[in-house]
């Protein structure tokens, strides 16, 4: 008695799909390895070096004032959203999305610990937008308008603490709670003049291979995901 036979075409289809998926997996591993080796050898500086903060008259230039030559993005620190001492030995760049729950988790659970490194002058922290949707662009517009009144980090703290409530009214309420000039704030939001900032940050992120959020650069070291504080602690201490 013979069982119902599967024709050769069904077998071939399975084998072909196996090879396709295996090929994709192999490609991803090879690409990651090659990309890592290239950027660590400084071969992916696709942007002209951004303007650096003018070096003080010292025999040596503090490392943080030098643009990273490897995997990290080239950022104009003078116009970026930053915290801490620009002369710190470690530059930590975060690409983040307001609608990403893992970014929210990082800001709630891990960033307060990293703040201690910032306060000690060991880390110079830079925040960059990574909009994953039109929603992120809309929220980023509000955040950039808060930045015009020097309230960027206070504003995004409130956003990350209330990621479930990001309507225009909610965001406006955050601005009011922070005591911002609402007339200027509303005017800024309605003008939409800051809408391009998030897209600029996204383009910059793509150039250095950022594909999701949160993604961090601790000097030249890329760290992906809302990793526990111990990962960042070791990465920062190794660079100090």
């Amino acid at each position: 008695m013979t069982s119902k036979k599967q024709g050769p075409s069904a077998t071939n289809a399975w084998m072909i799909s196996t090879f396709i998926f295996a090929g994709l997996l192999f490609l991803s591993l090879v690409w990651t390895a090659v990309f890592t080796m290239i950027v660590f050898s400084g071969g992916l500086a696709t942007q002209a070096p951004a303007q650096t903060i003018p070096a003080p008259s010292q025999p040596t230039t503090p490392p943080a004032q030098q643009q990273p030559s490897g995997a990290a993005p080239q950022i104009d620190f003078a116009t970026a959203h930053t915290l801490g001492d620009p002369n710190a030995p470690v530059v930590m760049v975060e690409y983040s999305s307001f609608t990403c729950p893992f970014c929210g988790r990082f800001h709630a659970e891990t960033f307060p610990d990293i703040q201690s490194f910032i306060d000690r002058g060991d880390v110079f922290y830079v925040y960059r937008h990574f909009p994953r949707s039109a929603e992120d662009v809309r929220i980023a517009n509000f955040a950039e308008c808060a930045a015009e009144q020097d309230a960027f980090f206070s504003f995004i703290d409130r956003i990350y603490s209330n990621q479930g409530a990001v309507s225009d009214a909610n965001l406006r309420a955050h601005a009011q709670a922070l005591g911002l000039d609402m007339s200027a704030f509303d005017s800024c939001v309605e003008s939409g003049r800051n809408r391009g900032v998030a897209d600029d940050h996204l383009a910059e992120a793509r150039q250095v291979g950022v594909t999701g959020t949160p993604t961090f650069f601790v000097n030249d070291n890329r760290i992906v995901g809302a990793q526990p504080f111990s990962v960042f602690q070791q990465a920062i201490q190794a660079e100090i």
Partner: protein
Amino acid sequence: MILRYLRQELSATIIFTSFLTGILFLLFVDLIPNMGFLFRALTSSEYAFLSMLWAFLSGVPATVPTINAWLLFVVGFLTALNVSLVLKRGARLRSMGATGSSSFLGVLAGGCSACATGILPLIGLGGVVAILPFHGIELAVVAIVLLCVTLYWNARAGVCAAD
């Protein structure tokens, strides 16, 4: 009859190995995006590699969504069960191909494309998964269903061979 065969063939060792494989699948998908940094930690004297590796591993519950983690584990577990049966019984090419396809589908769709863990974002296909209604979870479910089917085929292959 199939269940009896499975109970016969799937020893405690195979089950335990499959359990470990499931865990390895999950850890692998989380570690892949950080491979460059881990390589640097391994080759640089400034880092304690094992300590760094442990820090990443202990962060898996925080970096991979729970449902994605469970799906990855199940894909790994079923893959190992299938491979065990294939090795034991030398199952037909169709079964081997189906096992491979389903497993790779589950691994590629695993992780979280939006939160940058996973494999598809590494090759620029994160957007493909991100636009799906459940952001890749449906692909992992399909993979698991297929792996259950291949488990049935592999078990039946053993039963038929015995006839």
